[in-house]
């Protein structure tokens, strides 16, 4: 069929598909979200930057403080050692050594010359650890070259200093080097070794000073050895010599950390202070969480409020919509309540006045329709009474003409000559013809106002009944008549009987002059597509006049050839049209005709 039904489209999200009730909260939500995100991001990054700045400042000052603290420490140790060195004479070092060795953290003390050769030494354990190029057999001897020789020779220090860290065996050690002078000339160095071993007290103090999220490492200024003053630690993953101020790196145990380094004055050490960046940024992150929570709350509240507002709007729109639907279905009696004076209120009152106008227009239209219907009914009645009059008033005079002509014939036929008899006969036959015309015309005009009363019709039985009724007027066995199995249909039986009577009657009439008249009644197709047909082998007609066949009073044969009124097929077409069907014919002169028709079930 030709009806276009829109295919169900695959679901695609579009803002315009949403109802206003959904649109407004969504819009508000988006607006709030973008606002919160923008301001949140700006403030978060601002605060983060400021916090980082504060952290860096703290790191710098911490590093400075620690540097000066350990510088002080080194200075006091150097001063102590220097005091011992000042008591050293070439001949007598034993007393000095013994005094120094009272310190349990000092495993060895040695006196070296300016080339780094050990002049004398006293060791608590493993003296060979502190020597290079030493013959292993002379371990007990104090002769040999100290491992700090490169430090002394490379720099030729003219003052005391704390040397680098050395890894000797399992422990780290560092030397405190004080000059030994003679006649204001440096003649050698007193080297006091100390083991790297922080006391629990100092560890506690340090951790209190630094906090949990910071660390303090000491290293040699050449970067070779690093320690946390308890054990050896891996070196930082960057070159400390290129660090200008603060460096950021990944510190195991701290995560992302920022670090600062400074050399400790009076030593060959460098200290590295690192702070965990996440600890520094904790405040900023807390702010972020707060903002997320607050933002979510704000969006939720915003949506709720927006939903309320839009519900307020849409409730009114819904009322309008209901009223419109009611109006469309013909209910003019439900005005929309006007309970506010904004645009929606105006819309409602405008709607009400429109509904009033529509109701009035409808009413006047209704009245007009009623008036027209009355006029039409009157005209129809007039037409009916006209056809009634025609049927009654035309028949009576005609019957009189017929009657008097026959009376004339009956009473005076004996005195008539041939011409008078012919004329009387013509009068009688013409009157008969006119009588048939009137009857057919009345039947045709009656069909116009007749309603089609449909029910199930047995078409085969109907066609057979018509056939036997029509064959009454003909000599027996004249026609070869075939009625095939016809499907039933849903139509007006009385009207369909007229169709068969006319079509089969025509077939009999027009084939009656042939030697072996054959009339076939059949069908093709089934159900709605059924086409019924009546075929004869009679006179047929020229197809160029086919369009005249079904018109009133149109005939393709003369009255002398085949008598008829020219109304039968017009009547048939009207009946078929009333059944919403179609009728057509195929023929050629002398080779019979086929009349086809279809019926619609509705």
């Amino acid at each position, binding site marked *: 069929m030709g009806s276009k039904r829109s295919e169900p489209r695959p679901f695609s999200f579009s803002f315009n598909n949403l109802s206003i009730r959904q649109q407004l909260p969504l819009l508000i939500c988006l607006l709030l979200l973008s606002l919160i995100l923008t301001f949140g991001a700006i403030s978060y990054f601002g605060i983060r930057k400021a916090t980082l700045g504060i952290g860096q400042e703290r790191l710098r000052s911490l590093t400075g403080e620690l540097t000066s603290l350990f510088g002080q420490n080194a200075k006091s140790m150097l001063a102590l050692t220097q005091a011992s060195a000042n008591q050293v004479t070439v001949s007598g070092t034993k007393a000095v050594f013994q005094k120094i060795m009272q310190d349990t953290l000092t495993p060895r003390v040695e006196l070296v010359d300016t080339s780094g050769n050990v002049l004398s030494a006293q060791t608590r354990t493993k003296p060979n650890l502190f020597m290079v190029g030493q013959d292993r057999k002379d371990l007990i001897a104090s002769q040999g070259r100290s491992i700090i020789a490169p430090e002394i020779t490379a720099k030729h220090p003219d003052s005391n200093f704390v040397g680098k860290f050395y890894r000797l065996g399992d422990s780290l050690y560092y030397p405190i080097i004080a000059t030994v002078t003679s006649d204001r000339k440096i003649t050698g160095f007193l080297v006091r070794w100390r083991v790297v071993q922080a006391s629990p007290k100092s560890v506690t103090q340090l951790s209190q000073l630094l906090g949990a999220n910071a660390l303090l490492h000491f290293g040699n200024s050449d970067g070779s050895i690093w320690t946390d003053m308890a054990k050896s630690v891996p070196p930082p993953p960057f070159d400390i010599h290129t660090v200008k101020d603060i460096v950021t790196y990944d510190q195991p145990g701290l995560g992302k950390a920022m670090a600062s380094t400074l050399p400790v004055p009076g030593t060959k050490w460098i200290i590295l202070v690192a702070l965990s960046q996440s600890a520094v940024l904790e405040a900023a992150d807390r702010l972020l969480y707060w903002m997320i929570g607050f933002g979510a709350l704000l969006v939720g509240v915003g949506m709720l409020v927006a939903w309320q507002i839009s519900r307020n709007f849409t409730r009114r729109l819904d009322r309008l919509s209901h009223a419109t639907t009611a109006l469309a279905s013909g209910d003019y009696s439900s005005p929309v309540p006007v309970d506010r004076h904004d645009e929606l209120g105006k819309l409602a009152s405008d709607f009400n006045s429109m509904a009033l106008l529509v109701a009035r227009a409808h009413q006047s239209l209704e009245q007009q329709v009623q008036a027209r219907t009355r006029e039409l009914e009157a005209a129809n009645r007039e037409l009916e009474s006209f056809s*009634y009059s025609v*049927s*009654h*008033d035309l*028949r*009576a*005079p*005609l*019957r*009189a003409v*017929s*009657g*008097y*002509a*026959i*009376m004339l014939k009956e009473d005076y036929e004996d005195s008539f000559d041939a011409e008078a008899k012919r004329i009387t006969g013509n009068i*009688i036959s013409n*009157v*008969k013809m*006119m*009588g048939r015309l*009137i*009857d057919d015309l*009345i039947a045709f005009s009656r069909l116009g106002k007749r309603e089609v009363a449909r029910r199930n019709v047995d078409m085969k039985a109907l066609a057979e009944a018509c056939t036997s009724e029509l064959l009454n007027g003909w000599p027996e066995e004249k026609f070869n008549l075939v009625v095939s199995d016809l499907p039933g249909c849903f139509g007006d039986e009385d009207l369909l009987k007229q169709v068969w009577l006319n079509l089969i009657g025509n077939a009999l009439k027009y084939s009656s002059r042939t030697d072996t008249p054959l009339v076939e009644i059949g069908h093709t197709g089934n159900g709605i597509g059924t086409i019924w047909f009546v075929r004869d082998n009679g006179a047929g007609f020229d197809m160029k006049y086919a369009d005249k066949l079904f018109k009133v009073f149109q005939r393709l044969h003369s009255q002398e050839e085949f008598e008829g009124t020219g109304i039968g097929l017009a009547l048939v077409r009207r009946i078929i049209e009333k059944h919403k069907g179609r009728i057509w014919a195929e023929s050629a002169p002398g080779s019979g005709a086929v009349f086809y028709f279809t019926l619609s079930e509705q």
Partner: protein
Amino acid sequence: MINGMISQVEVLLVEDNIHDAEMTIRSLKKVNLANNLVHVRDGEEALEFIFGQGKFAGRDLVNAPKVILLDIKMPKVDGIEVLRRIKTNEATRCIPVVIMTSSQEELDIVNSYELGVNSYVVKPVDFEGFAKAVSQLGMYWLLTNQPPLSPNIKHP
């Protein structure tokens, strides 16, 4: 066919068309059934005859026709009204009434039968068919049919 001269009326023909009346009478005559026939020209006259009023005042009402042949379309009072008056009167409702008309209007047919008509005949247009129908009618109602016993007609 004048009041009082007929002792036994067998057919009351109610027909305004004189030609139809002539043909009816001729057809009945042919089968010898028109001897006791009264022809009235409209519904008013018909009612006067049946109920013994007007120019038929004093008619012996016991003498009811064996059949009334009634046209529908007539001046003054039409056939349907005459039928109604006959069939609603206790005394006359048993008289057989045959409507003879040119009308094939469904409404007329339905109304007639609802009012209790005994037969409804559409006049054929051609005389041959008409004559045949009338003579058959006459033979049936006057010879074949057993009329009711003479009723006691009272003035309405």
